[in-house]
């Protein structure tokens, strides 16, 4: 029992990062119905920029993080404006999908040209140590990651709920024609959504890099698929569902590592997620919970 709870706490820490990715990913899906398969590689490139700023330019990790957040937002917005908009506007969904995959590789290649193919050590954001809470050995870094991810999601929920732009995003996601009719600048909102998605995702990527002390050139695809799976299983189109899906994925992974083997954790977790999707085809949370504002 003690061991189980220990694993679950670690799973939730891990899951809070996936939840942030899934939320960022689902946001784009909800407003556009577009699978943004360049999502993770836009984050990878920005995270590599952060690494370069710290290791070669000697910036403080936190300043570099702030710049990387802005970079992730800008890269995501550029992809939307310069690439996706050209396909979506013409109703060419499949071609847009291929373009997204091509974008992913282009971004990854830019990252590797910048930093090489070797795994990258990630700058330390928090000095982690083991702390003992009620008999459990927990890493302080993991708890801070959990806290920051939760704080980011709460801030984002408040943004959607209470600001004019946030409400515009939610409403445009529900009905674009209705949004245009009431004067919501749908085109601008879409670009903002990409920017916000990149910024949220990068916070998650930095937490991930900090927790594992490193990233490599395949981390982008990994992020995209973790986000895609968590968002889909949680309930495609539901933001709260994406968060729930991310936490579920983290929990399952942690239990798989603890009771089976680290080698099979990923395979087991994705298989389990596929089975959940089979049982609940509309997602853990159906379609209509979060969109209420």
């Amino acid at each position, binding site marked *: 029992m003690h061991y189980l709870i220990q694993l679950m706490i670690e799973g939730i820490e891990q899951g809070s990062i996936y939840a942030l990715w899934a939320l960022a990913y689902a946001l784009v899906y909800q407003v556009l119905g577009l699978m943004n398969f360049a999502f993770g590689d836009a984050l990878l490139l920005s995270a590599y920029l952060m690494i370069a700023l710290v290791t070669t330019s000697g910036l403080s990790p936190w300043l570099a993080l702030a710049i990387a957040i802005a970079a992730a937002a800008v890269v995501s917005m550029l992809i939307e404006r310069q690439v996706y908009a050209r396909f979506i506007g013409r109703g060419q969904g499949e071609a847009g999908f291929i373009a997204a995959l091509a974008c992913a590789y282009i971004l990854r290649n830019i990252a590797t040209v910048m930093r090489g193919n070797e795994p990258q050590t990630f700058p330390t954001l928090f000095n982690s140590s083991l702390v003992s809470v009620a008999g459990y050995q927990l890493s302080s870094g993991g708890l801070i990651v959990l806290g920051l991810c939760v704080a980011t999601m709460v801030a984002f929920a408040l943004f959607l709920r209470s600001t004019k732009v946030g409400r515009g995003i939610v*409403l445009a996601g529900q*009905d674009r024609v*209705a*949004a245009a*009719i*009431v004067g*919501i600048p749908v085109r601008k909102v879409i670009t903002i959504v990409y920017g916000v998605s990149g910024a949220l995702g990068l916070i998650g990527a930095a937490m991930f890099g900090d927790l594992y002390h490193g990233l490599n050139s395949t981390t982008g695809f990994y992020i995209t698929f973790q986000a895609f799976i968590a968002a889909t299983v949680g309930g495609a189109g539901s933001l709260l569902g994406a968060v729930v899906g991310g936490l579920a994925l983290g929990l399952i992974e942690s239990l798989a590592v603890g009771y089976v083997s680290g080698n099979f954790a990923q395979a087991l977790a994705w298989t389990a997620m596929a089975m959940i999707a089979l049982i609940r085809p509309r997602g853990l949370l159906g379609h209509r919970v979060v969109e*209420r504002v």
Partner: protein
Amino acid sequence: MSGADVPVLELERLSLAYGETVVVRDVSLKVRAGEVYAVMGPNGAGKTTLLNGIVGMASRVEGRIVFDGEPLERINPQRAAKRRIAYVPQGRQLFPYASGRMNLWSGGYGRRDRGRLEKDIDDFIAAWPVAARVAKRNAEVMSGGEQQVIAIGRGALSKPRLMLIDEPSLGLAPILVQEVFKLIADVASDASHAGAAVVLVEQNVEAALSVADHVCILSGGQVVHQGARGDLTAADIGDMYLH
């Protein structure tokens, strides 16, 4: 600001198309602030297209749309909203997973005096019991009549110069039809902002005549009758539908 004698909306020999297909031909009409112009006619006559054309959702192939004394060029729904043209489309097109109150709020999205918006929403909810009943309910679970009150309210909260309403009585219980038409009359005469010009597409002839100042009947995309309300009885209009 234009005086009351300048029409808010003037259509001059307007023809509209979807792609290559011309659907509305040669329609002219004028609506002033505080007036309701009812457009009637059978299904497929081009009524919805006429409203779509005013906000740029159907393309203008000939003629002019003059709004507040200036021709409307390169219009789209978003620019129309900015010019304070409120569109209450057929089927109402509310935000399905947003509450009644949030749907009302969305109508004020483009308003400059947004500081007053919350109070205006409160006033609207206080004035219309149907709106109060569904203020917290998502649009997707509202009845047709409740949706219609919120949809017109959403338009009204933009403080429109011009409101375009498409078939508001469609699928409504008779009691709510009355309520909805009271609301339409109220929007037209709203003293708080000099009233709105209303173009009302409606097949319920009696309900339409209860609020209309002018009437036109479209058939096959063309005007077959046009005039002041008093010119025709409901029975006359019924006959025209048949031809």
